[in-house]
């Protein structure tokens, strides 16, 4: 493993790749810190730029945007009291009170340092767990893959909105979108409606960009016509001052347990499909409060809250990459975009990747490590700049983003059909969002649907049309049981919640 790690580091220690990581982290922090623009959207917008790059350069860039994006949210959480991304919601709980006490600099310093520590913690877990998991996963057959993908889809559908049924419907829509074109195994052409461009199916990129970037523009337009006037951009507080890291060695020691616990929670939640940084920071905050000696102080501006939230959300990054790298199955929207970054270069992530492209995998580990280091340096050195950029008005930012979406989508195949489908997916995504359907299951359905179908047909071909291996193969059976349990638990939870609502309203 050590020789691979060294080879991985050597592969990214080129001027070009280091530059890409630097730029990626920088852009990620900007996207993450501006409310309304998520880390996922940032990674999506950078996807088209990676076509012409070497695989390691392109993937390093995407991972760097991811790391920067998850961390950047803390800047607006502390200074604006608006989380830049859902991953830093819990950071506002104590970050904002600290700013009111005149401790904004300290809050930022702690947030930055613990973002770094959480990120590194999860990276170590990723490096320890992924290779051995890949060794097991190599033996998986079609039934195992099918069961794992079904489990992921159910988790994502159940957890990304309040309603399992709506999540599943969204997921099925995504699977349907992937039907268009040439069917797996039989290679028959279906659902092309006589459109020649559809024979190849929808490309992933227009779907991703359409669903993750465009609804934001429509949202802004709708807000504008509803209210007639938007409040002008929120006031940014600039009364912060960082001395050193902003905290003492004694405080650092006292937060050790909290940091380890929150990082562990973040990594574990990241590995599970369906839930990511948006959940882990809240969960870690709650756990830290529960285990604290003085829980009543949470929310009044103590560092424990920021430590919990920021180490957990950054720890999610390493965790989320575990299923992607070992199984080729993304667990959330951002890793789905990174998966597209692999497929653009004709690389299929999964257990075999560790054998065929080991240097690339360890190169990605190295890139993540370097990205975390750049993140802590850039956030300390360039804080003033990021704060300035926070005041770029949304209407300008999003208009410019649209042009990027168009050109970026076009760049993939030089096809205006792709661009048109991007806008159509954007409109569909916006309508569904308005009807309170989650968008992440659509994307995961679109990406995992073909995987489920291919493996199902292949498996049934091997078993002469019998579904029995789903029960007799232990790993497949385990994941089918997990899937059923997920459905049972989310349904029970929803019914319970509904009864409560009815009781309250009576």
């Amino acid at each position, binding site marked *: 493993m050590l020789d691979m790690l060294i080879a991985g580091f050597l592969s990214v220690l080129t001027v070009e790749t280091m530059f890409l990581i630097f730029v990626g982290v920088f852009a990620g922090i900007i996207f993450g810190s501006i409310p309304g623009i998520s880390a996922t959207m940032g990674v999506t917008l950078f996807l088209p730029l990676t076509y012409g790059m070497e695989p390691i350069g392109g993937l390093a860039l995407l991972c760097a945007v991811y790391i920067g994006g998850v961390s950047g949210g803390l800047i607006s959480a502390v200074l604006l009291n608006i989380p830049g991304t859902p991953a830093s919601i819990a950071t506002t709980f104590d970050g904002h009170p600290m700013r009111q006490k005149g401790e904004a600099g300290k809050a930022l310093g702690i947030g930055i340092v613990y973002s770094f520590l959480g990120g590194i913690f999860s990276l170590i877990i990723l490096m320890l767990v992924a290779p051995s998991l890949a060794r097991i996963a190599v033996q998986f057959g079609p039934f195992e893959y099918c069961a794992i993908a079904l489990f992921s889809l159910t988790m994502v559908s159940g957890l990304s909105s309040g309603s399992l049924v709506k999540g599943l*419907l969204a997921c099925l*829509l995504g699977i349907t979108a992937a039907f268009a074109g040439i069917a797996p195994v039989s290679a028959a052409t279906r659902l092309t409606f006589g459109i020649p461009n559809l024979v190849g199916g929808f490309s992933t990129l227009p779907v991703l960009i359409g669903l993750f970037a465009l609804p934001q523009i429509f949202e802004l337009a709708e807000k504008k*016509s509803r209210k007639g006037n938007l409040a002008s951009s929120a006031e940014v507080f600039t009364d912060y001052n960082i001395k050193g890291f902003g905290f003492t060695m004694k405080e650092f020691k006292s937060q050790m347990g909290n940091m380890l616990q929150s990082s562990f929670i973040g990594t574990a939640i990241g590995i599970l499909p369906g839930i990511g940084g948006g959940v882990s920071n809240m969960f870690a905050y709650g756990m830290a409060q529960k285990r604290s000696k003085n829980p009543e102080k949470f929310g009044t501006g103590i560092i424990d809250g920021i430590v919990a939230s920021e180490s957990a959300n950054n720890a999610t990054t390493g965790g989320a990459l575990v299923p992607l790298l070992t199984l080729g199955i993304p667990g959330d929207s951002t890793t789905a975009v990174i998966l597209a970054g692999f497929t653009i270069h004709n690389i299929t992530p999964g257990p075999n990747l560790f054998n065929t492209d080991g240097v690339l995998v360890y190169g990605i580990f190295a890139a993540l490590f370097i990205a975390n280091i750049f993140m802590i340096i850039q956030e300390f050195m360039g804080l003033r700049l990021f704060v300035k950029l926070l005041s770029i008005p949304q209407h300008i930012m999003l208009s410019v983003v649209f*042009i990027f979406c168009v050109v970026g989508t076009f760049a993939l195949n030089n096809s205006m059909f792709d661009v048109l489908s991007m806008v159509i997916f954007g409109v569909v995504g916006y309508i569904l969002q308005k009807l309170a359907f989650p968008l992440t299951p659509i994307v995961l359905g679109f990406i995992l649907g073909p995987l489920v179908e291919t493996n*199902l047909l292949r498996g049934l071909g091997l078993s002469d049309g019998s579904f029995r291996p789903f029960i007799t193969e232990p790993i497949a059976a385990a994941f089918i049981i997990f899937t059923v349990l997920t459905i049972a638990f989310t349904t029970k939870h929803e019914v319970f919640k509904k009864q409560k609502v*009815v009781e309250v*309203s009576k």
Partner: protein
Amino acid sequence: MLERNKNLIGALLFLVFGILGYVSTFSFPQSVAKIGPDFVPKIVFGLTIILSIMLIVGHYSSRKKIASSQDKNAEEARREVKFKPNIILLIVVVLLFAYVLLLESIGFMILTPILLFALITLLSPEGENKYLRTAVISLVTTFAVYYVFRVFFNVMISNGILG
């Protein structure tokens, strides 16, 4: 829009979608294999139909329960009925489609500044729009994007009437 009405509208949309999809699977090319290219689509569309019916049933059963005991929601619903058409939203959607459809024939360098100027002006908070600034941003963005993609990434963005 009220949460439950959202469910109903969404469910009806998905129901129509599921039925149309299911019907379309019968015209899929048949293969000799017992499990053909219509196998998984049939399951997916079938599930879509079942789940949207579940959502519709859920809508009516929860409405009955709550409507009897609650007037506040009804009031809220009445307020929600006064649904104002979103003119700006509509214009933005039309603009984006028009831009994409005309891009190839008219050309990136001409159409992009116009779209950007229109978008930024439409979306800006009232009283905050500075036309000169918007014009400069529109032009600079167009040139920057064109240059970056053309020179660094070799993307042949349409020149349209500029040839």
